[in-house]
């Protein structure tokens, strides 16, 4: 692995985003719009907005980065640029780390922007500090990125890659505890929920924003989130083949 190649890859990915202002605008402003809608929706039930607003801020980047990464990596595989990169003095880890740095920066920007609007303009109030939401959002974004990278190996077309979003992400949002408390779920659903990474990403956000609790369970949540990120990156790296048939 070399710092030079990693840095070059991060710059290249950021340049690609810069050359695509529409995608960049969607990435940055759609979460803001959604949070605004949420606040309006519950304008006469402020408690609900206060409860789910914080965790949602931290989950937007996860979903966005999952989509962006799975499509971008699929394009690299299909267009032949990945094969070309594999013939260069560039480690697989350089590619992955380059993507992580570039998308991590965008995720941080996204999280800061939506947080400023939610905390500053819409009156969102949480137990924990707002910066904890931003930090968790960035770590969730990198989780989303690594999951997107991994699933991109199983898609042949962009249509397929897009479908991974409802297939892979929506069930996790339903089961993570946002809509129904996990303690009220049927046993099998609870078990399924235990096995899904979103559950831990959500729980960490819930603890930080609602309870202001940075306890043992919070540490476990973070450990699982980081562990799954590393696992998905490792599996993703193994799908980047230097030699193909």
């Amino acid at each position, binding site marked *: 692995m070399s710092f030079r*190649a990693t840095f070059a890859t991060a710059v290249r990915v950021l*340049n*690609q985003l810069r050359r695509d202002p529409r995608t960049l605008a969607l990435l940055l402003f759609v979460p803001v719009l959604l949070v605004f809608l949420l606040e309006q929706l519950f304008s006469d039930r402020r408690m609900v907005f206060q409860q789910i607003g914080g965790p949602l801020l931290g989950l937007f980047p996860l979903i966005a980065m999952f989509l962006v990464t799975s499509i971008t990596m699929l394009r690299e595989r299909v267009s032949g640029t990945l*094969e070309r990169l594999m013939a260069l*003095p*560039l480690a697989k880890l350089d590619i992955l780390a380059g993507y992580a740095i570039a998308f991590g920066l965008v995720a941080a920007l996204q999280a800061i922007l939506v947080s400023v609007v939610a905390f500053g303009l819409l009156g969102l109030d949480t137990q924990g500090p707002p910066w904890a939401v931003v930090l968790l959002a960035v770590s969730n974004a990198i989780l989303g990125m690594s999951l997107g990278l991994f699933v991109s190996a199983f898609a042949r077309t962009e249509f397929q890659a897009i479908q991974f979003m409802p297939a892979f992400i929506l069930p996790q949002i339903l089961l993570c505890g946002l809509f129904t408390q996990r303690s009220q779920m049927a046993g099998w659903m609870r078990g399924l929920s235990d096995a899904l990474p979103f559950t831990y990403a959500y729980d960490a956000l819930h603890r930080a924003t609602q309870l202001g609790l940075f306890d043992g369970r919070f540490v476990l949540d973070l450990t699982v989130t980081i562990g799954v990120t590393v696992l998905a990156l490792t599996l993703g790296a193994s799908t980047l083949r230097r030699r193909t048939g």
Partner: protein
Amino acid sequence: MIDYRPMAASPSIVVDGLRVRRGGVVVLDDLSLSVASGRVTGLLGPSGSGKTTLMRVIVGVQIVEAGSITVLGEPAGTPSLRSKVGYMTQNPAVYGDLTVRENLRYFARILDAAPDNVDEVLEMVAMAPFGDRVVNRLSGGQKARVSLATALVGNPELLVLDEPTVGLDPVLRRDLWKAFNELADSGKTLLVSSHVMDEADHCHDLLLLREGKLVATGTPASVRQQSGKQDLDEAFLALINEEVA
């Protein structure tokens, strides 16, 4: 008798008993050949004859079933070769959403090439006036030249170019072949594929490939002599018929 002629420099590429299977079909079978250093070697043959597969083997991105492949004195695919071998894929492997210069700068950074190397290669492929254009807005021939430029970045010792002159106008083709010959004069080794026999006369040596087997090797003059035909298209046909008979 003692031969006092100077010994030829050791060949840049030596392939011995190569067998490659792609999708269950044997594409190259028991292929043995060598490519001399400091010369332009033309790899000629109809579409589907195995030219691209052989090039992929040489740059180390193809899974090989049997045989030994030595490139610049080391087994093909050795990591240290990745900065010494420039590879141009048949379909342009460049980032369509970046400008020409952004693409080349990425390759230059990975290869740790001097920044002004980008301008040199742009000049060589006659793309200097288009440096700030986004690749997707270029014509097919211009894209192919950007892809060629990425292979030239970093001043590699060996250039493996897959159909670099396809779809280019005659003036540009002539200029590129002139550039290839100048590179060989400066000590570089070039392996250039083409399915157009007209291009054979620009090469020092020829490898004629058909259905994964070598039909003939030698200088254009010696291929003419072997076949008894002046026109290289006819020479190729005559050599195939000889083989069949």
